[in-house]
């Protein structure tokens, strides 16, 4: 069994009286895509935010490798090796692709906040940025201003930025949302490549993509895990069918 890179144990998150995530435990291994699915309001996005540190947990533990990162703020978790994409594309719209990714590479260059020296002249950072851009296949678009690119390209760019932070774990929140067919296919291929040497946690509604990509699946409903396992196991799980098709034990 491959090394566990990210582990969540008994995560809880309350918003006022609402239990958005209630006792979720899961782990993500190196070299696998672990997909989290479930109906609306199941708590998938909250789970990702708890793992990335965007929202603090009410209780529970998050470990990255051997390190307990539960109380770290999002920037410290990013430095520790957790990269993420957002449901809504989150890039710097008025900068070029290269500038976007360079910024990400800069954050992990060891002198992220130096007060002197122009960033344009930092060769190590520039190379790291170009490598990440190449990995997502945007090399030819390096000089394009982000806002003039298609939605699919913007999402690729966002992943390039994540890659430039040299993450060990990548959290993807609905990477296919709002994409056309062709764009979606490109993105699926890209995500499949990402898992090499990294751990990927994927939240996605597009079941074709989920089944094409996921090595393991966790199904959430009402803030809790209702099933977990390989895609085939999950597909036939009665609780999952009930959640999705409204089956209550009966055969459709």
């Amino acid at each position, binding site marked *: 069994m491959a090394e566990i890179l990210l582990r969540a144990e008994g995560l809880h998150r309350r918003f006022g009286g609402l239990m958005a995530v209630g006792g979720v435990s899961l782990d993500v291994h190196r070299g696998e895509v672990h997909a989290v699915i479930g109906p609306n309001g199941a708590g998938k996005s909250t789970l990702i935010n708890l793992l990335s540190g965007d929202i603090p947990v009410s209780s529970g533990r998050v470990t990255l490798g051997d390190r307990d990162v539960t109380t770290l703020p*999002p*920037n410290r978790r990013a430095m520790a090796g957790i*990269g993420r994409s957002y449901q809504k594309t989150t890039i710097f719209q008025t*900068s070029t692709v290269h500038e976007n990714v360079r910024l990400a590479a800069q954050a992990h260059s060891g*002198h*992220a*906040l130096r007060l002197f*020296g122009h*960033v344009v002249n930092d060769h190590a950072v520039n190379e790291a940025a170009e490598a990440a851009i190449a990995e997502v296949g945007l090399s030819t678009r390096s000089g394009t201003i982000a806002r003039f690119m298609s939605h699919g390209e913007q999402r690729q760019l966002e992943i390039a930025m994540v890659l430039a932070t040299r993450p060990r774990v990548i959290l993807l929140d609905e990477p296919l949302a*709002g994409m056309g067919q062709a764009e979606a296919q490109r993105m699926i291929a890209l995500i499949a490549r990402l898992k090499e040497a990294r751990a990927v946690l994927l939240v996605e509604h597009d079941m074709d993509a989920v089944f094409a990509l996921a090595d393991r699946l966790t199904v959430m409903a009402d803030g809790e895990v209702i099933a977990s396992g390989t895609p085939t196991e999950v597909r036939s799980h009665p609780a999952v069918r009930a959640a999705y098709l409204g089956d209550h034990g009966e055969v459709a």
Partner: protein
Amino acid sequence: MAKLPGATHVSSRFYRIALVASLLVSLVLPFVVPVYYVQFLSKAMLMGILALALNLVVGYGGLVSLCHAAFFGLAGYVLALTSPASGGASIFITLPLAMIVVAAVAAVIGALSLRTRGIYFIMATLAFGEMLFYLFHDTKIGGGSDGIYIYYEPEAVIAGFRLVDLGNKTHFYFVSLGALFLTLLFLKGLVGSPFGHALAAARDNERRALSLGFPVFGLRLAAFVISAVIAAVAGYLSAAQFGFVAPQMLGWHLSATVLVMVVLGGLSSLVGPLVGAIALMGLEEVLKSLFDNWKLVKGLIIIALVFLLPGGLQQLGALVMPERGEAPDTTGEAVEEKAHG
């Protein structure tokens, strides 16, 4: 959303020619205009430094601060309170002291205000700035509402040798010019540095900057303090120029006026605020001599600026000369909706 630093609108050749020309003019000017205008120009340059400082926070940091006059004035009070009664204080001791005091105060105000967002940040900075105003206005520390006088301008003496005479209007002019030049140089380096880029990134998308690993709060606090320290240099020199500090130097009307300068010059460029400062000061001087109710005109001009030239004078520049690359986007991003269906 403004551009990340690095992208200039106006062609760099024109930029360079303009820079050299204005440098030459500024070197000659004090010898050809009456003393009153030499003084006026010094004052305008000091305001320019203040505007440049503010723009680090507003333009590059995306944080609308309404307390920068307080840092400006506080530095003046430090000079006033440390000036001996019977001679000039040493600039080499009191200037660094003023910068340290302001840095400390800015660190506290910044740390508190930066806990808030948007409108709250504006209000919090406004209120803390006014707190400093009232500290000097209502207590005996600095002469109360009358302000306090610096009877002898600070001395720039090293080992018995007097470098410049700050009491001499021409000398003072060149000291201001030098300070301005150093500020520009420093800020140019800063906005191009990793720090500057990270700061701009936090402005454009705080969430993303955080998830890339940038410590946004610390970044902003550092920018806030750096900006306050530059404002302190301007305030110190302003106090030295006229030998007088009053609480109004710390008041929010000055903060707002400097904000007008910044917007007038254009947020997204380095020298914009300087241009804005000189333009507004010049405009005020003209208006004062033309109208009794010149502030009415000033108010109308500010209102017009908001609606007609939201990008500042830079926008005028864009009309007069062709630009490189795509047109700057002044209409902003489409309103982002929440939640997918």
